[in-house]
């Protein structure tokens, strides 16, 4: 009985030692992983800082102005280019310019719908041949 107890105790000891070892090993692995990720994040942050600086370097107003003067036909805004809403003229009466054109051409008569086709074979607008 005592012997069995010893064997169980020794077995528990060995297995717990194994378990502790594996936990420790895994922890080390995770710690390494963490360190790697931290280093990677740091590298990314540094890269972002460089890119930010470069972005601002390329977007500095001095350069943008030089580029705009060379490539764009834009002018600085002057106050004379700004008008009040009340100074904008009202919209004129609505004109159906297409309709008027048709009228002028003598095509103002409504076209025939397919329903009428039976009685009259002519389908050209205005009943022309």
């Amino acid at each position, binding site marked *: 009985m005592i012997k069995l107890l010893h064997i169980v105790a020794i077995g528990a000891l060995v297995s717990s030692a194994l378990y502790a070892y594996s936990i420790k090993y895994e922890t080390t692995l995770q710690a390494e992983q963490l360190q790697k990720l931290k280093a990677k994040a740091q590298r990314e942050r540094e890269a972002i800082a*460089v890119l930010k*600086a470069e972005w601002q370097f390329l977007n500095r*107003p001095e350069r943008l102005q030089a580029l705009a003067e060379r490539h764009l036909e834009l002018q600085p*805004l002057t106050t004379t280019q700004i008008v009040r809403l009340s100074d904008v003229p009202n919209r004129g009466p609505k004109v159906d310019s297409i309709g008027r054109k048709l009228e002028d051409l003598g095509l103002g008569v409504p076209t025939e719908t397919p329903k009428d086709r039976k009685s009259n074979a002519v389908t050209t607008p205005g009943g022309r041949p």
Partner: protein
Amino acid sequence: MSDAADQHVAAGVGSAGGTRTRRWLRTDWLRDVFRMSGEKSEPRVGLVILGFSGLFLAIVGRLIMLGAFPSEQVGLRRATSTAISAARPDILDRNGVQLATDIRTVSVFAEPRNILDKDEATELLTAVLPDLNAKELRDKLGTKKGFVWVKREITPRQQAEVHRLGIPGVGFVPENKRVYPNGNVAAHVLGFANVDNIGIAGIEKYIDSQGLQDLNGAGFAVQASDLKPVQLSIDMRVQHLLRDELVKGLEKYRAIAAAGAIMDVNTGEMIALVSLPDFDPGNPVDALEKDRINRMNVGVYEMGSTFKALTIAMALDAGKANINSSYSTAGGMMRFGRQVIKEYHGTGRTLTVPEVFLHSSNMGSIKMALSVGVEGHKAFLRKMMQLDRMTTELPESAAPIVPQRWGEINTATIAFGHGLAVAPIQALAAVGALVNGGYLIKPTFLKRTEEEARKEAIRVIKPETSEAMRFIMRLNGEKGSARKADVAGYFVGGKTGTAEKVINGRYAKNKNFTTFTAIAPSDKPRYLFLAIYDEPKGYAESGGYSTAAWNAGVTTGKVIERAAPILGMAPRFEPPPSPFPLMARLGAWGSR
């Protein structure tokens, strides 16, 4: 055990004589050491005391050694931690645009003690890094130091090449490098940091004085991510356009220097500050040359007619004059002992207060100042912070040049802006107080709100006086010398100032220092604009004139036109219905 003790007692008694007992004694002593009984173990206690004493003596000795002769063999980590440049916070403008940031670079160092062949190392390193001085490098490697810099901040390509050389005792260490992506644009505000990332001038130095260096000195490894960015009041876009216009003006008017600033009159924030010639903060080799000073903060100048605004405000505020008071300028000159002061734009008739300002009458200003008296004049200027050094966040500042003995003649000349030299930023703060309702707010370069500014503001003049000042400045913008800056829609008011420069103790007739101060919009000012030229020359369209309206005035007009839309000022098509109710009620000259 007790047997042994008995034996010992017996031996002790018997040790009075005989060689046998002596040998006994020796082993006896050893036996005593290992004896367990308390009262007999003194020798053992002694041995323990001896052992520990030896141990502690050794430790103390080593400590003294370390303290007295700092070993050069301390680890590389320690050597580099004091040498590499520290992280600095980013600097942003008021809209979050980056003005300065840190980027990671690599520096090459050497450990001379570990380099076997110093001549060969020198030769190889100078071959890869051609801008190194071979002799200097050889001398550096010849020392017995544990750590020397070979070259700071090298490119990744150079790093690869040095790495390939494979010289033992040569290594790399990552460092922070300060970069200023906008180049010259805000040079005088930002200042710069040296290769060790220590602020040398401008806001950079201010940041260090706020405790950053103390942290580094105490050994805290500060990381850029731990530092909160510093947000300035500068607006990068406005800063650029102000500089752009001043650069163009400097060329056109062939001036030796120029400066300009835009201030928010309600918060005291500096929206832009330019001083030309400037420098590149990323490569500040010429930053310390004499003509690169920040003329806004460090230069002191006689501001000329701009000071007449202060004189008029003083007389109005003291109740010695009202807006309808009139002053005779008959004769066109005034005599003070041996000195004669003439009218520049002589009219010869009696002028009301607004006319004194419009015609920039010296005699009118002198009479107003004298009505307040010498002491009152001094007290008013002191209250307006014109007589003491004005300090802002920028560490550079200059004390005004105040006359040693201040007599009536000094009050007379200072009344129209001669005889007292102040830093332009001081004058800017004073004019801001004249127009913003009477609060003197110290200019700042850090972003803040109106409430924060109001807490520190000091009331210096009455709101009514402030309205009168706005009224006459607007009148001058409409009808007077400030017409050049009257951009339609922004209701601009302003004042020109032309001072003759003092060369060898005399006023030089043909060398001017011109200033132009403008406010917009005049009925409720938001921004104060200032442009300065040093020794501008006349040009074809100006008919040879080099007075302020023809150079500083023109520049200010262009700046207002470009900056107003960016600063969110909407143009108005008709003047505000009653901009100056009090002036209209008093029936002031020009209000109808």
